[in-house]
């Protein structure tokens, strides 16, 4: 951690990129402030409990990493710090229970789906509940769809041009099963065979980023044995957070005996939009049917695509590839929507302010449709756009493509 802390020249360039600084306007809740706080805790000049509230408010969105000219690896820093500090934290029983529930339910689609269904019945009770319990309910869709599992192999349509492995993700199987269905259809349509390897599970990002290192390690290792990178052209994810998590494996296993395996694995990991964009650039992407009317699509950059993986151009290019679609840029587009993994559950107030702010910026460009590449952003934006009384549809980028291929856009 020390090298990462020292790389910060405290110039403050990251301040405007930070959602919590933007809302709160104080140094403790800025990236620069947090780096100084971590440094002081590590050096023993500041008690952890004093710094903790400000570090807990960090979304891990990595907006600061994009903004930092000095190359401070803030993402690695906060993850390492949380892993180091979690065992020393003294948390209340309610808090421990909540964390345990989150860390258990997220990686288990069936459990999550069940929880979501139960939660759905609790929705009418929401106003009577304490804020900490209300926040997750707010995010649930009106109707929790049936859990849909992906076939083990989806054959390419027409001539086969490639073979990829697919990480099906956790929460999104329960909340938005069509993301995966659309992904499989779009890939098959383009001659790509898709394998969903057995034994795969949660990417481990949520556990890792909340400091639950032991849980994270076992999830990471399970995936490393489920996916054999030698067998596939690429290992795809369609959830920005999971994709970023998979790409982090070498850092997670740094210095461990299986680090080389993690490197080979991570070298193959791509977001589905990156992979399709490669086909597009090679002239190999099948042309979609034109949209039924000119469509203005507001594209929302998920933090874990734009900031964590540097994927910005690919999804935009894919959307523009559809005849009749133009892409709108959203004001303050670099600022997190407040969803950020489990943040919604841990910091409901800030998350909700950020969500409302994002919805109003998106709606200000008057889109016909909103697209993004992450389940967390999707539910957050959908919920806040609806709260702002707009019916504009919110979709995954591949869902838009899928509709276009089917002539239904």
């Amino acid at each position, binding site marked *: 951690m020390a090298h990462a802390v020292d790389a910060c*020249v*405290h*110039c403050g360039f990251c301040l*405007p990129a930070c959602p919590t600084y933007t809302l709160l*306007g*104080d140094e403790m809740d800025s990236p620069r402030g947090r780096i100084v706080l971590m440094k002081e805790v590590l050096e023993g000049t*500041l*008690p952890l409990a004093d710094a903790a*509230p400000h570090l807990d408010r960090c979304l891990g969105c990595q907006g600061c990493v994009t903004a930092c000219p*000095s190359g401070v690896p803030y993402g690695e820093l906060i993850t390492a710090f949380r892993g180091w500090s979690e065992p020393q934290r003294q948390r209340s029983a309610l808090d421990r229970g909540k964390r345990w529930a989150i860390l258990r339910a997220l990686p288990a689609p069936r459990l999550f789906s069940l929880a979501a269904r139960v939660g759905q019945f609790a929705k009418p009770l929401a106003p009577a509940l304490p804020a900490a319990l209300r926040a997750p309910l707010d995010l649930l869709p009106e109707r929790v769809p049936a859990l849909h599992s992906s076939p083990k192999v989806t054959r390419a349509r027409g001539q086969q041009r490639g073979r990829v492995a697919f990480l099906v993700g956790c929460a999104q199987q329960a909340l938005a099963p069509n993301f995966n269905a659309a992904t499989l259809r779009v890939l098959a349509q383009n001659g790509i065979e898709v394998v969903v390897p057995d034994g795969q599970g949660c990417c481990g990002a949520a556990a890792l980023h909340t400091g639950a290192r032991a849980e994270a390690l076992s999830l990471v290792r399970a995936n490393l044995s489920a996916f054999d990178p030698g067998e596939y052209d690429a290992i795809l994810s369609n959830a920005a957070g999971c994709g970023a998590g998979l790409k982090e494996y070498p850092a997670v296993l740094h210095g461990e005996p299986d680090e080389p395996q993690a490197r080979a694995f991570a070298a193959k990991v791509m977001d589905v939009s990156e992979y399709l964009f490669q086909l597009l650039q090679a002239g190999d992407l099948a042309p979609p049917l034109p949209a039924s009317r000119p469509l203005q699509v507001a594209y929302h950059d998920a933090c874990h695509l734009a900031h964590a993986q540097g994927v910005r151009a690919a999804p935009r290019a894919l959307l523009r590839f559809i005849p009749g679609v133009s892409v709108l840029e959203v004001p303050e587009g670099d600022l997190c929507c407040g969803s950020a993994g489990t943040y919604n559950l841990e910091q409901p107030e800030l998350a909700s302010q950020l969500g409302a702010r994002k919805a109003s910026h998106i709606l200000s460009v008057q889109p016909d449709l909103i697209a993004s590449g992450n389940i967390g952003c999707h539910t957050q934006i959908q919920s806040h756009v609806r709260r702002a009384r707009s019916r504009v549809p919110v979709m995954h980028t591949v869902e838009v493509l899928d509709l276009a291929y089917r002539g239904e856009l």
Partner: protein
Amino acid sequence: MRDSGKRANTTAHSPLSTDLLRRLAPRQVLTSLAERRNYRYDAIQFGETPLAVVLPENTADVVVAVKAARAAGVPIVGRGAASGLSGGAAPLRESLVISFTRMTGLRIDPVRREAHAQAGVVTLAVSDAARPHGLIYPPDPASFRTSTIGGNLAENAGGPMCFKYGVSGDYVKGLEVVDAHGEVHTLTRDAYDLAGLLIGSEGTLGLITEAALRLLPPPRFTRTLMAHFPEVGACAEAVSQAIAAGAVPSKLEFMDRACTNAVEDYLVLGLPRGAEAVLLVDTDGDDLETVEEERALVEQACVAAGGTVRRAGTDAEAAALWQARRSVSPALGRIRPQRMNEDIAVPRSALPEVVREIRALGDASPFPVVQFGHIGDGNLHPNILFDPRQDDAAAVHHLAHQIALVALRHGGVLSGEHGIGSMKRDFMTDALDPVTLDVLRDVKRTLDPADLLNPGKVLP
């Protein structure tokens, strides 16, 4: 807060913080150690941990804070975004820090072409708010996404646009200021130009709470080019020649090889890594023919001096080049964790010689010395890069002094735009004659008899 029950006892219950907590809302007064530790630095150095921090939301809050500090005999340090490069916002003693980042009220008056900005408004926000009215706010320090109007005016900040359009202070129509006694003043630019006295005073004469700023319609056309040179002096030559030939570019920026490489590591734009000097130029105006003519003049001067020229083809390419220039200073952190940053301004005719002499000083020292700056105004930022864990601070300071002397020897000044702060305070006796220094001290004593406002800054 989940850990509140377990909070260590690190909250400072000084009489000052007790008094402040009584007079202001709890969210406006920071007293815990974690909070206070975060208000002891700026972009260049760490100072004393303040006794308390106040985050005012309006001028009345500032008055309350100043009066409370005065009653307690505690010094007051104003703070914007703490992007300052001379230690201005880093307290030298246990102080009350007044941080303006929540005073962000901003109103545009399109008819009078004015912006009314509270001190904490971010520089870029002024232009963003003015643009829908067909207006811009030209001062553009590289830190303009972060820095505040209050900090800009307290430092009289400059930027690339300032070669043609003037520095921050040139855009001030009036100021609202809270003095050392907690009295509120509205200052204009008429005789005596007290607003002018406050501009560049680095929080030592009063606290700026609001400013009326002049706005301009933006030029209709802008053209951007980049030139690179095998030798630094040639770059300075080209600039002098272009200006002599009648070009008035709106921006003329220079970075040396180390700077170019540090930025290229960050942005990967395809900058010429091997060049000893890179020059970035904008020409602008409302008449396209003149704008292109001026660009041609600059091009010819660059080629004549042995440079290679590349025009920015699109707005996006131009924007990327300017982002590169703005990233220079923090990107230097990739070379060494710390730097001593200078801000000299020399007559343009002396530039080639000054650049070469500083280069020679750097080469003879154990430290990497890099140079970049607003070369049109002769404003250079030589930076000494070092590692505080192993390098000798006195040696760094000595080299900085040598560099400052090069500027003074060639008829230059110590601060083009970043201010004196505590970093360059010691060099003031080289820069000013004793009689002038005495006048400055008299001014300070008159406005701040108890030496409460940012003590230890500017004046030696």
